[in-house]
């Protein structure tokens, strides 16, 4: 009996020690994770601060609206901003229907098997192709084979191929957040698979889906390598720079940042580069904020969540 009491006492002391050690480990882990999160934030702030510091002096209404200059100082980025949006919209118009449909098929219809594996594998392979290689592929197909020269549509199609796998993936992930029980409940009420997807699955997934699409839009907006040899590094002169003709060269903002530094002979390279980089960064940031706001709004709108 006395023995048992002693052992119990020993166990208590032992476990008290264990508790202290565990509490210290817990605090350390919390601290380390917090520090890691903080360093991500710090890097972002530093990076953005630096770009802002360099670029702020270059920004003016004139800079944002006037055409670039080939040889003298004082060029702007008006047509580049326009082209970036133009190519973005065209790319999304091509990518979204195909990628979202394929994602829905793979997630909702395809049974595990050879075909699904094959499509998944193709998409993953496509996703690992470096964008410069995709650019050269676009050069061969759209510029030479189809004879379109450097064109906005050639650039948009190249970006379409580049972003199909990512958007398909985003669609699949968004759909996979919808609980199986919703699908079962809908089917059990006599809804067809398509009615279930249209009325329950897609509305429930609209938040993450929109967020994913806008984030990919940000990537398209900032894409450079795939566009250098497809949409080109020049803009049309005068009013022609702002038209809707897809068969004209269409240098985007991101390409312009690269081009001024790598190839241009204008004396104010640094000013243009820094200013463009700032505009690009702000645009992409806006996309991210927009993604969150719209995603949240649509989720609320379609799910009746207060």
């Amino acid at each position, binding site marked *: 009996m006395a023995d048992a009491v002693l052992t119990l006492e020993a166990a208590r002391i032992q476990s008290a020690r264990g508790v202290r050690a565990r509490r210290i480990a817990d605090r350390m882990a919390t601290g380390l994770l917090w520090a890691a999160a903080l360093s991500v934030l710090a890097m972002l702030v530093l990076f953005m601060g630096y770009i802002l510091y360099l670029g702020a002096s270059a920004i003016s209404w004139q800079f944002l609206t006037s055409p670039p200059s080939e040889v003298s100082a004082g060029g702007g980025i008006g047509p580049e901003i326009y082209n970036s949006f133009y190519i973005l919209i065209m790319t999304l118009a091509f990518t979204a229907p195909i990628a979202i449909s394929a994602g829905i098929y793979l997630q909702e219809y395809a*049974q*595990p098997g050879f075909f699904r594996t094959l499509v998944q594998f193709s998409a993953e392979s496509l996703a690992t192709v470096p964008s410069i290689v995709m650019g050269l592929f676009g050069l061969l197909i759209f510029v030479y084979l189809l004879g379109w020269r450097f064109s906005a549509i050639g650039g948009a199609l190249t970006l379409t191929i580049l972003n199909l796998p990512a958007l398909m993936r985003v669609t699949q992930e968004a759909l996979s957040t919808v*609980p199986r*029980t*919703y*699908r*079962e*409940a*809908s*089917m*059990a*009420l*006599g*809804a*067809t698979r398509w*009615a279930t997807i249209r*009325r*329950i699955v897609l*509305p*429930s997934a609209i938040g993450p889906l929109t967020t994913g699409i806008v984030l990919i839009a940000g990537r398209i907006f900032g894409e450079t390598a795939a566009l250098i040899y497809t949409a080109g590094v020049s803009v049309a002169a005068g009013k022609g720079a702002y038209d809707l003709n897809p068969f004209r060269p269409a240098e985007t903002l991101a390409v312009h940042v690269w081009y001024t530094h790598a190839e241009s002979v204008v004396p104010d390279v640094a000013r243009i580069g820094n200013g463009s980089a700032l505009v690009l960064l702000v645009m992409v940031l806006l996309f991210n904020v927009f993604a969150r706001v719209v995603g949240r709004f649509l989720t609320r709108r*379609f*799910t*009746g*969540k*207060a």
Partner: protein
Amino acid sequence: MVEIPGAVTVKVDVEDLNVYYGAFHAMKNAQLRVSERRVTALIGPSGCGKSTFLRALNRMHDLTPGARVTGSVSLDGMNIYDPSVDPVVVRHRIGMVFQRPNPFPKTIFENAVYGPRVHGEGNRAKLMAIAEKSLRRAALWDEVKDRLFKSALDLSGGQQQRLCIARVLAVEPEVILMDEPASALDPIATSKIEDLIGELKRDYTVIIVTHSMQQAARISDRTAFFLLGELIEVGTTSDIFTRPTDKRTEDYITGRYG
């Protein structure tokens, strides 16, 4: 096989039902006749196949990759597994309430009228009437009539489950399958659901899976006992609980099993 008293018609007739999940034989040669406008309880220990059996009755196994069903399930004499039968039509006639309340992330109103909507009813006034009628039948109307256009996800668990029942009633099925509908609810919500089931059997044929023998005794007219993928015994609930014929049923009833 216990004889069904002459006055009662057979609503669902299950013959030689087998269910496989891949190589696993989950339900072996089950036979069951379900009487119209009665409550039939399916009982047995966890993993005995009672839910598997239930889900075979409205072709829910169609949605599970790798699941295979053989044998026949007849609804008023029509085999629902006949290749010419559309599972969508089957599920229209045989509704299902799940174990966990699973309202859609929509408003209470939209949940209630989901079935009629997917079946093509678009008239707002008609839908409103259907919503009220179904919610009343599910004993939920008074609690939600002032917030029909608020999210269903803000309701309590018991309210959500009654909404799910209302959602099924709105489709006007003939048979209602319930898969442990009260197992995620507290005792008060449970007794509301049980009262409701007692009401529903006036118009519907109810088949309910339950892990609670007390619940089966309280609400059902007939009880079927399952064990290890087999339907061991079926009879009137009082017979099953007072004088089971099979030793295994008796062991389970008297608590000598899991």
